[in-house]
């Protein structure tokens, strides 16, 4: 289970080595699932990418606990993403031929989940552009990379954590205004 935790932690922090090992170990599985169910190689790459984006968000949620093997959970996420995509393409009653055990995720992907996500991304990207570079870095390091105020202070040459915290306060207030004009 240690290696499983290692993978979870690596995905949470976007560790390049861990992501590479996930690709090496599991892209074949995803490709097989997609290609054997009416998809293409590019579709498989899309599903793999989207699944890791979902995992990134899920693993960074404080209440998330991996209750099954990583492989099973990852397959289940990929399966749901590809099934949603197949249904969106017209196969309302599309069914998948499975090659692995899978679990119920407890959440579903809406047919336009990717578009919604892309819209949110564009919106926040635009809002962030109005912030200074330092603000962007502080916010991303704190909310995306989950770094502590001490780490951020050290990385961005603030006097101490409190100074970094004060700066972060100003940045998030500005971002909130930009997102909700």
């Amino acid at each position, binding site marked *: 289970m240690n290696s499983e935790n290692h993978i979870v932690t690596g995905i949470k922090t976007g560790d390049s080595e861990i992501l590479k090992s996930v690709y090496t170990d599991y892209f074949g599985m995803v490709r097989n699932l997609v290609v054997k169910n009416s998809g293409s190689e590019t579709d498989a*790459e899309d599903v793999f990418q989207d699944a890791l984006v979902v995992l*990134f968000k899920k693993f960074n949620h*404080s209440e998330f606990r991996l209750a099954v093997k990583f492989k099973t959970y990852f397959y289940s996420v990929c399966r749901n993403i590809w099934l949603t995509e197949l249904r969106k393409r017209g196969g309302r009653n599309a069914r998948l031929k*499975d090659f692995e055990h899978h679990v119920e995720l407890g959440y579903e992907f809406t047919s336009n989940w990717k578009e919604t996500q892309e819209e*949110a991304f564009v919106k926040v990207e635009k*809002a962030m552009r109005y912030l200074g570079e330092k603000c962007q870095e502080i916010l991303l390091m704190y909310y995306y990379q989950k770094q502590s105020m001490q780490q951020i202070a050290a990385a961005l040459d603030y006097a101490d954590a409190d100074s970094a915290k004060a700066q972060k306060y100003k940045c998030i*207030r500005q971002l909130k205004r930009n997102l909700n004009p």
Partner: protein
Amino acid sequence: MISEKDIALIDAFIAGDLIGNDKTDFESRVKKDLEFAKAVRQQIHAVEHLEIMGAVTMGKSLRRDMQQWKSEGGYQPYQPELMGKGMMTKVIAGIVFSSVVGGVIWYFFMKEEPTKPAPVKPETEETVAPEPTPTTDVIDTITTTESLVELKTSEEQIADMQLNVKDPTTFSIHEISEEDGIYTYEIAYDDYVDVFQSRDPDIDDVLMEMAEQAISDNQKVNEENKARNNAAKQQSVQSAPTNTPTQKKAEVEQKAEPKKKTTTQPKPRRKQQKVDDDFPY
């Protein structure tokens, strides 16, 4: 006005770090303080967007890396988990199916069926009536002897007895044991002793009655054959043509000689009697 402390408090709530009274106080303040509630909503919204931004950025970066990893050696060949089990199931099902089909074919086409020979006619030697041996009619002869330890129906068991027993006078049967409604019998006939099992508690009585009936029938057949031979002999003497002097002389000489004893020639019990084509009766 939302303070820096409030922002930190909301961050702690979003991160799930508030517990106990702190969490209760936070939730009650959200209900009472509209400005604070609005700040919480906006901050959750902003953090969610930042997480989406982080995730999508990571995904786009990953896509670029995937092209590189692909060119560096790609991914491991995939071994489907469920396919392996399915294949195993297919192999086992195949073996079972083949066994069943093979068994059915063997049972209907390959199994050697015991052949029941035609009833043996009593053998005669010239005008001497043979004394039939007890090995005729009801319980006939068969050259094969099967082991009878398998569980069979009463009808099958009785059929086996009929086919196997040569000399019913040697037949004996007795029950050895009974367990779960299955009776084990020791059976003896001819030179053989066997053990067989049956669900029929009365099969020993049935078989014993059959053996006694066979003995009785054989005796009747013997007596009938004897009577028929005597009658035929008398008839041949009476209907003989007028003899020539030479023949008469021979006849007188024959009468003068001691009468030839016409006893039956007992045959070996196990030998099948040969039936002549020119059987006179």
